[in-house]
């Protein structure tokens, strides 16, 4: 049994093979692998006995799932209304120019993936950018350079 097969088995088993838990199972696998490969989706379909079309439908519908591998570091720019009125679009532009990737793209060296999110719920800090779970508020160009550099 290969690694994917084992991990899927463990996750599906954690929910007693309950088909209603498909979304929760995929969330668990997304967290473990960082993305959902076609092998993973097929394995879920097989083990949970749910048609692959439905697994794929869920995986492609919700934002939390990625069907492509992501970079080593995830940069998330909040595009919520509060951040928006405080210049989130300019911040996103700036990061996009600096790393030469557009939102939802991964840099060629697989270092960074740039993502946007609708609201992180920390509106007092806007505009906010998150790198690997650490929040930065209103970073300047120089601050961003430092942040990206120290990410490695």
């Amino acid at each position, binding site marked *: 049994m290969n690694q994917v097969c084992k991990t899927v088995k463990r996750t599906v088993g954690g929910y007693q093979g309950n*088909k*209603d*838990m*498909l*979304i*929760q199972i*995929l*969330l668990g696998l997304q967290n473990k692998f960082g993305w959902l490969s076609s092998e993973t989706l097929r394995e879920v379909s097989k083990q949970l006995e749910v048609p692959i079309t*439905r697994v794929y*439908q*869920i995986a492609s*519908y*919700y*934002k*939390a*799932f990625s069907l492509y591998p992501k970079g080593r570091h995830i940069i998330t720019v909040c*595009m*919520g*209304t*509060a951040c*928006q*009125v*405080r*210049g989130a679009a*300019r911040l996103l*532009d*700036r990061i996009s*120019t*600096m790393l030469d990737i557009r939102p939802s793209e991964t840099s060629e060296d697989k270092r960074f993936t740039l993502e946007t*999110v*609708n*609201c*992180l*719920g*920390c*509106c*007092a*800090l*806007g505009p*906010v950018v998150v790198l690997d779970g650490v*929040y930065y*508020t209103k970073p*300047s*160009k*120089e601050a961003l350079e430092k942040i990206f550099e120290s990410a490695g």
Partner: protein
Amino acid sequence: MSNNRLASPGELEKLRAAILSRRNPNRRVVTVCSGTGCQSYGAKVVFQKFAAKVRSQGLEGKVEVKATGCHGFCEKGVVVIILPEEICYLSVKPDDVSEIVSRTLGKKEIIERLLYTDPNTGKKKAKESDIPFYNNQNRIIFGNNKYIDPKNIEDYISLGGYGALSRALSEMTPEQVLEEVKRANLRGRGGGGFPTGMKWEETRNAPGEPKYVIVNCDEGDPGAYMDRSLMEGNPHSVIEGLVTGAYAIGSHDGFIYVRQEYPLACENVEIALKQAEEYGLMGGNILGLGFNFKVKVHRGAGAFVSGESSALMSAIEGKVGEPGLKYIHTAIQGVKDKPTCLCNVETWANIPFIINRGADWFNSIGTEGNKGTKIFSLVGKVNNTGLVEVPMGMTLKQIIYDIGGGIRDGKKFKGVQTGGPSGGIIPEKYLDTPVDFDQLTKLGSMMGSGGMVVMDEDTCMVDMARYFIEFCCGESCGKCIPCREGLRMLREILTDICQGRGQEGDIEEIEDIAEVMKEASLCALGQTAANPVLTTLKYFREEYEAHINEKRCPAKVCKDLINFYIDPEKCQACIICLKNCPVEAINGGKDLVHWIDQEKCTRCGTCFEVCPPRFSAVIRSSGEPVPPPPPEGTRVVRKKGG
């Protein structure tokens, strides 16, 4: 674990008394706000430093350090409150901790530097209750956050927690609980404003077993985070409300649906459920009174429309979160076609208060038809960003100016966006409107779940309308055509207007499409998606006209309609803009006047932001020609002493 299990209401009271007697009322408590906002400011480090310092100074017996939920004043994080004096320190940094421990905890001195400064009088305010941000509020649902470590059920119990549940189960019949909630006139806090008691009754009377109850914490409105802060800061209040409601409805199975973008809320609610079960307040034979109830946590996978009740229920069944037809209420046919009662986090959190203090007390707060308090997230270009809880019926002006402290940086108020992407933008002339479900709807907006985004003169209303339509475009599930195609069309037209391709007749076409969407969309997302466009057209029509007819953006936001140039008279050749320009469009050098190459300029606005305010040499213009650059090599003329 069963040794903690409470087998009767009497044992709950005994435990409460024991917790209180264990606690020395004179013992000082340092509460460090650890909501997501303050955590981003470094609350964790502040907390750890406090704990370490207290230990190293041997103050453990005298001082307790507690990480609590959100205190609400997110603008000034990290917020630290020292009890029982209620000394409120704002913007606390890890480096301030030693001083607080040695001076305030050791010598009972107050550190002026960390206190709130009244911007009008310059006076310092030591207590939380003296700060206008707090003393203009009525914090009932949210007020306990500052006393509670959400990971410790005993904190909640010590404040009377689970007393309402115990009372409901032991002294009241389910009908009496239902009657009390109906009499309180509580309306759903998620946005719809539907009377909660009626909703409960519908599920209670609906045929079919099992019946389900759901907590909706899929807070998707951008700019709103009160549900998150309640769930993170005081999860037991929501759980107590849920179990009490389940008893009234006759349900034994519940779901708590939390979006996965809120990891701390997920974590705290899971811990809270485990503890509630351990104490016999959840699960089988609750408090030995024969009522059984169990609950599962579902994490939402990120879809705005999943907050809609029927869509959320299909997500719980593991399906794609698309709304269904509403010929039959979900209260009658919901999860797995069984009667299901879904309420918002804040609605459930109101229940213990109504049971404890009674419907008459609840009815004494608020306005006709809108009772109780409401938590708003006051964000955007306002001075005191944060979460505020006020009685229904307070005016927008009181909230934005008295509590929010007015507009940032001395700018002018332009509008306030309420109700998220389904709401609208309200202009200055309606600032005296009392805020409740009905009044805001009359203005074409809505109260929604309580998002309140303040906008100043630098906000372009056409751009804002485009932003919301873009948002809904990304979130429309695509099931029905009016919403899917209508939004796409609106986005095209609005983008054209913002990029200088607006034409005569565009406004009429927008109104046409909006009308169809309102009438023909399947769910509330589509029916209300055009509200931001319609309200901005109603209140800020001249901005649309300037974009279309003069190709001018009055707020100077829309990139394709603005230009930046440097005033050679004002430029002091400080090289700051030159260094920061991401596309190297700025020419000049040491002692040489800077100028912007319009061909290279991407209008990102960086130079405008970084030019020191004492020079203000970068000019943003719209609808006027850009003056030619000074001849290359023009030297800066500095005034003496300049």
